[in-house]
Protein backbone atom coordinates (compact mmCIF):
# COMPACT_ATOMS: atom_id res chain seq x y z
CA UNK A 1 0.00 0.00 0.00
CA UNK A 2 2.82 2.34 0.92
CA UNK A 3 4.42 1.62 -2.43
CA UNK A 4 1.19 2.54 -4.17
CA UNK A 5 0.93 5.79 -2.19
CA UNK A 6 4.50 6.79 -2.91
CA UNK A 7 4.47 5.81 -6.59
CA UNK A 8 3.13 9.07 -8.00
CA UNK A 9 5.92 11.03 -6.36
CA UNK A 10 8.74 8.69 -7.19
CA UNK A 11 7.74 7.91 -10.74
CA UNK A 12 7.02 11.46 -11.78
CA UNK A 13 7.77 11.75 -15.48
CA UNK A 14 10.60 14.08 -16.49
CA UNK A 15 9.60 17.57 -17.55
CA UNK A 16 9.36 18.04 -21.27
CA UNK A 17 11.11 20.87 -23.07
CA UNK A 18 7.71 22.38 -23.92
CA UNK A 19 6.76 22.46 -20.24
CA UNK A 20 10.03 24.05 -19.29
CA UNK A 21 9.69 26.70 -22.00
CA UNK A 22 6.11 27.35 -20.90
CA UNK A 23 7.22 27.90 -17.31
CA UNK A 24 10.09 30.07 -18.51
CA UNK A 25 7.74 32.22 -20.55
CA UNK A 26 5.47 32.72 -17.53
CA UNK A 27 8.44 33.85 -15.47
CA UNK A 28 9.62 36.12 -18.27
CA UNK A 29 6.19 37.73 -18.36
CA UNK A 30 6.61 38.55 -14.69
CA UNK A 31 10.04 40.08 -15.21
CA UNK A 32 11.80 37.13 -13.52
CA UNK A 33 14.47 36.88 -16.17
CA UNK A 34 17.19 35.01 -14.28
CA UNK A 35 14.87 32.18 -13.22
CA UNK A 36 13.36 32.05 -16.70
CA UNK A 37 16.84 31.80 -18.21
CA UNK A 38 17.67 28.79 -16.05
CA UNK A 39 14.52 27.01 -17.22
CA UNK A 40 15.29 27.77 -20.86
CA UNK A 41 18.75 26.31 -20.40
CA UNK A 42 17.20 23.15 -18.99
CA UNK A 43 14.69 23.06 -21.83
CA UNK A 44 17.40 23.43 -24.44
CA UNK A 45 19.37 20.62 -22.85
CA UNK A 46 16.32 18.41 -23.47
CA UNK A 47 15.59 19.78 -26.97
CA UNK A 48 18.61 21.68 -28.32
CA UNK A 49 16.96 22.29 -31.69
CA UNK A 50 13.86 24.01 -30.35
CA UNK A 51 13.13 27.28 -32.16
CA UNK A 52 10.85 28.30 -29.29
CA UNK A 53 13.65 27.71 -26.81
CA UNK A 54 16.21 29.69 -28.77
CA UNK A 55 13.75 32.52 -29.36
CA UNK A 56 12.96 32.67 -25.64
CA UNK A 57 16.66 32.62 -24.93
CA UNK A 58 17.12 35.58 -27.28
CA UNK A 59 14.29 37.53 -25.64
CA UNK A 60 15.75 36.92 -22.21
CA UNK A 61 19.17 38.09 -23.31
CA UNK A 62 17.62 41.28 -24.65
CA UNK A 63 15.66 41.71 -21.45
CA UNK A 64 18.87 41.35 -19.46
CA UNK A 65 20.70 43.70 -21.83
CA UNK A 66 23.19 41.09 -23.04
CA UNK A 67 23.31 41.97 -26.71
CA UNK A 68 25.80 39.61 -28.39
CA UNK A 69 24.27 36.37 -27.10
CA UNK A 70 20.84 37.72 -28.06
CA UNK A 71 22.07 38.31 -31.63
CA UNK A 72 23.49 34.79 -31.79
CA UNK A 73 20.18 33.31 -30.71
CA UNK A 74 18.12 35.35 -33.17
CA UNK A 75 20.53 34.35 -35.95
CA UNK A 76 20.28 30.71 -34.89
CA UNK A 77 16.51 30.93 -35.36
CA UNK A 78 16.85 32.69 -38.71
CA UNK A 79 19.32 30.08 -39.94
CA UNK A 80 16.53 27.55 -39.57
CA UNK A 81 13.59 29.73 -40.47
CA UNK A 82 14.82 32.58 -42.64
CA UNK A 83 11.65 34.67 -42.40
CA UNK A 84 10.83 34.23 -38.73
CA UNK A 85 9.17 37.61 -38.05
CA UNK A 86 9.92 37.74 -34.33
CA UNK A 87 13.59 36.90 -34.85
CA UNK A 88 13.78 39.55 -37.58
CA UNK A 89 12.14 42.11 -35.30
CA UNK A 90 14.57 41.22 -32.53
CA UNK A 91 17.59 41.62 -34.81
CA UNK A 92 16.18 44.87 -36.17
CA UNK A 93 15.88 46.32 -32.68
CA UNK A 94 19.44 45.32 -31.84
CA UNK A 95 20.68 46.89 -35.08
CA UNK A 96 18.88 50.12 -34.20
CA UNK A 97 20.44 50.09 -30.74
CA UNK A 98 23.83 49.94 -32.41
CA UNK A 99 22.98 52.78 -34.75
CA UNK A 100 22.83 50.58 -37.86
CA UNK A 101 19.65 52.05 -39.31
CA UNK A 102 20.01 50.36 -42.70
CA UNK A 103 20.30 46.89 -41.18
CA UNK A 104 17.39 47.65 -38.85
CA UNK A 105 15.22 48.87 -41.69
CA UNK A 106 16.09 45.88 -43.86
CA UNK A 107 15.19 43.39 -41.12
CA UNK A 108 11.88 45.16 -40.49
CA UNK A 109 11.01 45.14 -44.18
CA UNK A 110 11.78 41.41 -44.32
CA UNK A 111 9.60 40.80 -41.25
CA UNK A 112 6.73 42.72 -42.78
CA UNK A 113 7.11 40.90 -46.08
CA UNK A 114 6.72 37.62 -44.23
CA UNK A 115 4.01 38.85 -41.94
CA UNK A 116 2.32 42.04 -43.22
CA UNK A 117 0.05 42.38 -40.15
CA UNK A 118 2.86 42.96 -37.68
CA UNK A 119 2.08 46.15 -35.76
CA UNK A 120 5.31 46.31 -33.77
CA UNK A 121 7.47 45.99 -36.90
CA UNK A 122 5.33 48.53 -38.74
CA UNK A 123 5.53 50.98 -35.82
CA UNK A 124 9.31 50.74 -35.74
CA UNK A 125 9.58 51.15 -39.49
CA UNK A 126 7.31 54.20 -39.32
CA UNK A 127 9.48 55.53 -36.51
CA UNK A 128 12.51 55.21 -38.77
CA UNK A 129 10.89 57.05 -41.65
CA UNK A 130 13.78 58.70 -43.39
CA UNK A 131 14.12 62.36 -42.62
CA UNK A 132 14.03 64.54 -45.70
CA UNK A 133 17.60 65.29 -46.75
CA UNK A 134 18.46 68.91 -46.27
CA UNK A 135 20.11 70.56 -49.22
CA UNK A 136 23.29 72.31 -48.13
CA UNK A 137 22.51 75.86 -47.15
CA UNK A 138 24.09 78.48 -49.39
CA UNK A 139 25.02 80.45 -46.27
CA UNK A 140 25.55 78.28 -43.22
CA UNK A 141 24.02 79.67 -40.04
CA UNK A 142 26.52 81.13 -37.58
CA UNK A 143 25.62 78.80 -34.76
CA UNK A 144 29.07 79.39 -33.30
CA UNK A 145 27.68 82.73 -32.14
CA UNK A 146 25.36 81.02 -29.67
CA UNK A 147 26.50 81.84 -26.15
CA UNK A 148 26.41 78.84 -23.86
CA UNK A 149 25.71 79.11 -20.14
CA UNK A 150 28.83 78.84 -18.00
CA UNK A 151 27.78 75.50 -16.55
CA UNK A 152 27.05 73.93 -19.97
CA UNK A 153 28.71 70.59 -20.59
CA UNK A 154 27.88 70.58 -24.29
CA UNK A 155 25.64 71.68 -27.11
CA UNK A 156 24.47 69.87 -30.19
CA UNK A 157 22.37 71.30 -33.01
CA UNK A 158 21.03 68.95 -35.68
CA UNK A 159 19.28 69.75 -38.94
CA UNK A 160 16.18 68.18 -40.42
CA UNK A 161 18.08 65.19 -41.77
CA UNK A 162 19.75 64.53 -38.42
CA UNK A 163 23.09 65.93 -39.60
CA UNK A 164 24.99 67.69 -36.85
CA UNK A 165 25.22 71.42 -37.67
CA UNK A 166 27.11 72.43 -34.56
CA UNK A 167 28.62 70.53 -31.64
CA UNK A 168 30.48 71.88 -28.65
CA UNK A 169 32.91 70.54 -27.84
CA UNK A 170 33.49 69.10 -31.32
CA UNK A 171 33.87 65.67 -29.72
CA UNK A 172 30.15 65.86 -28.88
CA UNK A 173 29.22 65.29 -32.54
CA UNK A 174 28.68 61.51 -32.18
CA UNK A 175 26.39 62.33 -29.28
CA UNK A 176 24.48 64.58 -31.64
CA UNK A 177 23.73 61.70 -33.94
CA UNK A 178 22.38 59.72 -31.01
CA UNK A 179 20.30 62.69 -29.89
CA UNK A 180 18.86 62.98 -33.39
CA UNK A 181 17.92 59.30 -33.38
CA UNK A 182 16.38 59.49 -29.90
CA UNK A 183 14.37 62.51 -30.99
CA UNK A 184 13.11 60.60 -34.04
CA UNK A 185 12.02 57.67 -31.87
CA UNK A 186 10.48 59.91 -29.20
CA UNK A 187 8.54 61.75 -31.90
CA UNK A 188 7.23 58.40 -33.14
CA UNK A 189 6.08 57.43 -29.63
CA UNK A 190 4.32 60.78 -29.21
CA UNK A 191 2.58 60.33 -32.58
CA UNK A 192 1.47 56.84 -31.55
CA UNK A 193 0.06 58.25 -28.32
CA UNK A 194 -1.82 60.90 -30.30
CA UNK A 195 0.09 63.77 -28.68
CA UNK A 196 1.33 65.57 -31.82
CA UNK A 197 4.84 66.60 -32.84
CA UNK A 198 7.70 66.68 -30.37
CA UNK A 199 8.51 70.10 -28.93
CA UNK A 200 10.67 69.66 -25.83
CA UNK A 201 12.53 67.02 -23.91
CA UNK A 202 14.69 66.37 -20.88
CA UNK A 203 16.97 63.34 -20.72
CA UNK A 204 18.60 62.68 -17.37
CA UNK A 205 21.41 60.33 -16.52
CA UNK A 206 23.31 60.10 -13.28
CA UNK A 207 25.61 62.99 -14.19
CA UNK A 208 23.86 65.26 -16.67
CA UNK A 209 20.52 66.59 -17.74
CA UNK A 210 20.09 67.18 -21.45
CA UNK A 211 17.47 69.81 -22.31
CA UNK A 212 16.00 69.60 -25.81
CA UNK A 213 14.00 71.75 -28.17
CA UNK A 214 12.90 70.40 -31.52
CA UNK A 215 10.68 71.01 -34.50
CA UNK A 216 10.56 69.46 -37.94
CA UNK A 217 13.65 71.33 -39.11
CA UNK A 218 15.92 71.62 -36.10
CA UNK A 219 16.89 69.85 -32.88
CA UNK A 220 18.89 71.61 -30.19
CA UNK A 221 20.26 69.76 -27.16
CA UNK A 222 22.00 71.44 -24.24
CA UNK A 223 23.77 69.33 -21.62
CA UNK A 224 23.91 70.77 -18.12
CA UNK A 225 24.92 69.32 -14.77
CA UNK A 226 22.27 67.04 -13.31
CA UNK A 227 21.94 69.40 -10.36
CA UNK A 228 20.59 72.17 -12.64
CA UNK A 229 17.12 73.27 -11.66
CA UNK A 230 14.61 72.21 -14.31
CA UNK A 231 13.25 75.74 -14.74
CA UNK A 232 16.75 77.10 -15.24
CA UNK A 233 17.55 74.41 -17.82
CA UNK A 234 14.36 75.14 -19.74
CA UNK A 235 15.09 78.86 -19.71
CA UNK A 236 18.59 78.30 -21.07
CA UNK A 237 17.51 75.96 -23.84
CA UNK A 238 14.68 78.32 -24.82
CA UNK A 239 17.14 81.20 -25.03
CA UNK A 240 19.50 79.18 -27.21
CA UNK A 241 16.60 77.98 -29.34
CA UNK A 242 15.53 81.57 -30.04
CA UNK A 243 19.11 82.55 -30.84
CA UNK A 244 19.52 79.56 -33.18
CA UNK A 245 16.29 80.44 -35.00
CA UNK A 246 17.61 84.01 -35.33
CA UNK A 247 20.87 82.77 -36.87
CA UNK A 248 18.98 80.51 -39.25
CA UNK A 249 16.81 83.43 -40.36
CA UNK A 250 19.89 85.60 -40.95
CA UNK A 251 21.54 82.84 -42.99
CA UNK A 252 18.38 82.44 -45.04
CA UNK A 253 18.21 86.15 -45.76
CA UNK A 254 21.88 86.25 -46.72
CA UNK A 255 21.39 83.30 -49.00
CA UNK A 256 18.58 85.12 -50.80
CA UNK A 257 20.72 88.22 -51.24
CA UNK A 258 23.85 86.41 -52.40
CA UNK A 259 22.95 82.95 -53.69
CA UNK A 260 26.55 81.90 -54.16
CA UNK A 261 27.20 78.21 -53.40
CA UNK A 262 29.31 77.79 -50.33
CA UNK A 263 30.48 74.78 -48.48
CA UNK A 264 28.23 73.85 -45.64
CA UNK A 265 29.70 74.20 -42.23
CA UNK A 266 29.01 70.81 -40.78
CA UNK A 267 30.71 69.01 -38.03
CA UNK A 268 29.93 65.62 -39.52
Amino acid at each position, binding site marked *: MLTRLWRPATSRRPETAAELFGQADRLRRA*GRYAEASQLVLRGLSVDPASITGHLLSA*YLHVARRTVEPAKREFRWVLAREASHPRALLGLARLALEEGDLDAGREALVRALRAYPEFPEAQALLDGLAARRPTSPSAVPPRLDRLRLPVAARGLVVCGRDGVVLDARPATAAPGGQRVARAVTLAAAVLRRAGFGPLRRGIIEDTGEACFLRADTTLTLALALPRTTHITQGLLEVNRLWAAAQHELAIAKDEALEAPVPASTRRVS
Partner: protein
Amino acid sequence: MSRLRLGLEMDGSSRGRQVRDIVHGLRSLHGVRGALLVAPDGFVIAADVPPNVAVEPLAALAATLGRDLEVGASKLGGGAFQTALFSADDGTLYLAASRIGFVVTLADPQANFQAIRGALEEAVTLIDSGWSPATPAGTAI
Protein backbone atom coordinates in the same frame (compact mmCIF):
# COMPACT_ATOMS: atom_id res chain seq x y z
CA MET B 1 -12.63 55.02 -19.81
CA SER B 2 -9.44 53.03 -19.86
CA ARG B 3 -8.80 49.43 -20.58
CA LEU B 4 -6.57 47.23 -18.50
CA ARG B 5 -4.09 45.12 -20.39
CA LEU B 6 -1.93 42.71 -18.49
CA GLY B 7 0.83 40.63 -19.95
CA LEU B 8 1.24 38.97 -16.57
CA GLU B 9 -0.16 35.60 -15.75
CA MET B 10 -3.09 36.18 -13.41
CA ASP B 11 -1.71 33.78 -10.87
CA GLY B 12 -1.96 36.08 -7.89
CA SER B 13 1.79 36.07 -7.43
CA SER B 14 3.09 38.85 -5.23
CA ARG B 15 5.30 40.20 -8.00
CA GLY B 16 2.41 40.19 -10.41
CA ARG B 17 0.29 42.14 -7.95
CA GLN B 18 3.15 44.49 -7.28
CA VAL B 19 3.58 45.29 -10.96
CA ARG B 20 -0.16 45.85 -11.39
CA ASP B 21 -0.18 48.10 -8.33
CA ILE B 22 2.73 50.13 -9.66
CA VAL B 23 1.07 50.64 -13.04
CA HIS B 24 -2.29 51.43 -11.41
CA GLY B 25 -0.60 53.85 -9.03
CA LEU B 26 0.92 55.79 -11.90
CA ARG B 27 -2.31 55.69 -13.90
CA SER B 28 -4.28 57.10 -10.98
CA LEU B 29 -2.15 60.26 -10.75
CA HIS B 30 -3.94 63.43 -11.73
CA GLY B 31 -3.46 64.15 -15.42
CA VAL B 32 -2.04 60.73 -16.29
CA ARG B 33 -3.78 59.06 -19.23
CA GLY B 34 -1.89 55.80 -19.30
CA ALA B 35 1.00 53.84 -17.84
CA LEU B 36 2.86 50.73 -18.83
CA LEU B 37 5.84 48.61 -17.93
CA VAL B 38 7.73 47.33 -20.97
CA ALA B 39 10.56 44.81 -21.02
CA PRO B 40 13.71 45.86 -22.92
CA ASP B 41 12.69 43.46 -25.71
CA GLY B 42 9.43 45.36 -26.17
CA PHE B 43 7.24 42.84 -24.34
CA VAL B 44 4.40 44.47 -22.40
CA ILE B 45 4.65 43.33 -18.76
CA ALA B 46 1.68 45.41 -17.64
CA ALA B 47 -0.28 48.26 -19.16
CA ASP B 48 -3.22 50.50 -18.45
CA VAL B 49 -3.68 52.76 -21.46
CA PRO B 50 -6.57 54.55 -23.16
CA PRO B 51 -8.54 52.42 -25.63
CA ASN B 52 -7.50 54.53 -28.60
CA VAL B 53 -3.83 53.67 -28.06
CA ALA B 54 -2.50 50.43 -29.57
CA VAL B 55 -0.31 49.18 -26.77
CA GLU B 56 2.03 46.75 -28.57
CA PRO B 57 3.34 49.20 -31.19
CA LEU B 58 3.68 51.87 -28.53
CA ALA B 59 5.61 49.45 -26.31
CA ALA B 60 7.89 48.40 -29.18
CA LEU B 61 8.78 52.02 -29.85
CA ALA B 62 9.13 52.94 -26.17
CA ALA B 63 11.45 50.00 -25.50
CA THR B 64 13.56 50.89 -28.54
CA LEU B 65 13.74 54.49 -27.37
CA GLY B 66 14.65 53.39 -23.85
CA ARG B 67 17.43 51.13 -25.06
CA ASP B 68 18.70 53.85 -27.39
CA LEU B 69 18.95 56.23 -24.45
CA GLU B 70 20.63 53.58 -22.26
CA VAL B 71 23.17 52.61 -24.90
CA GLY B 72 23.72 56.25 -25.86
CA ALA B 73 24.46 57.24 -22.29
CA SER B 74 26.97 54.44 -21.83
CA LYS B 75 28.69 54.94 -25.21
CA LEU B 76 29.15 58.64 -24.64
CA GLY B 77 30.79 58.03 -21.31
CA GLY B 78 28.05 59.73 -19.36
CA GLY B 79 26.28 58.29 -16.37
CA ALA B 80 23.64 55.61 -16.56
CA PHE B 81 20.39 56.69 -18.17
CA GLN B 82 17.65 57.28 -15.63
CA THR B 83 14.63 59.23 -16.88
CA ALA B 84 13.42 61.16 -19.90
CA LEU B 85 10.40 63.20 -20.80
CA PHE B 86 9.31 64.32 -24.24
CA SER B 87 6.49 66.77 -24.63
CA ALA B 88 4.19 67.67 -27.49
CA ASP B 89 1.27 70.06 -27.75
CA ASP B 90 -1.25 67.47 -26.55
CA GLY B 91 0.68 65.45 -24.03
CA THR B 92 3.92 64.35 -22.45
CA LEU B 93 5.71 61.02 -22.47
CA TYR B 94 7.73 60.05 -19.39
CA LEU B 95 10.14 57.14 -19.51
CA ALA B 96 12.30 55.69 -16.72
CA ALA B 97 14.71 52.76 -16.73
CA SER B 98 14.31 49.97 -14.21
CA ARG B 99 15.92 46.58 -13.67
CA ILE B 100 13.25 44.69 -15.60
CA GLY B 101 12.32 47.26 -18.21
CA PHE B 102 11.01 50.73 -18.85
CA VAL B 103 8.27 52.46 -16.91
CA VAL B 104 6.28 54.63 -19.32
CA THR B 105 3.68 57.23 -18.46
CA LEU B 106 1.47 59.21 -20.83
CA ALA B 107 0.22 62.45 -19.33
CA ASP B 108 -1.78 65.56 -20.15
CA PRO B 109 0.23 68.68 -20.93
CA GLN B 110 -1.02 70.28 -17.70
CA ALA B 111 -0.12 67.31 -15.48
CA ASN B 112 2.13 68.04 -12.53
CA PHE B 113 5.65 67.38 -13.76
CA GLN B 114 7.23 67.04 -10.32
CA ALA B 115 4.50 64.70 -9.05
CA ILE B 116 4.87 62.37 -12.03
CA ARG B 117 8.65 62.47 -11.88
CA GLY B 118 8.57 61.60 -8.19
CA ALA B 119 6.10 58.78 -8.76
CA LEU B 120 8.26 57.36 -11.54
CA GLU B 121 11.33 57.39 -9.32
CA GLU B 122 9.34 55.64 -6.61
CA ALA B 123 8.09 53.05 -9.10
CA VAL B 124 11.64 52.33 -10.28
CA THR B 125 12.84 51.98 -6.68
CA LEU B 126 10.05 49.51 -5.92
CA ILE B 127 10.79 47.45 -9.01
CA ASP B 128 14.53 47.45 -8.49
CA SER B 129 14.19 46.35 -4.88
CA GLY B 130 11.64 43.65 -5.70
CA TRP B 131 13.47 42.25 -8.69
CA SER B 132 17.04 41.98 -7.48
CA PRO B 133 18.78 39.38 -9.62
CA ALA B 134 18.64 35.82 -8.32
CA THR B 135 21.81 35.01 -10.20
CA PRO B 136 24.46 37.33 -11.56
CA ALA B 137 23.72 38.50 -15.10
CA GLY B 138 25.63 36.54 -17.68
CA THR B 139 25.83 33.31 -15.75
CA ALA B 140 22.73 31.91 -17.37
CA ILE B 141 22.11 31.60 -21.09
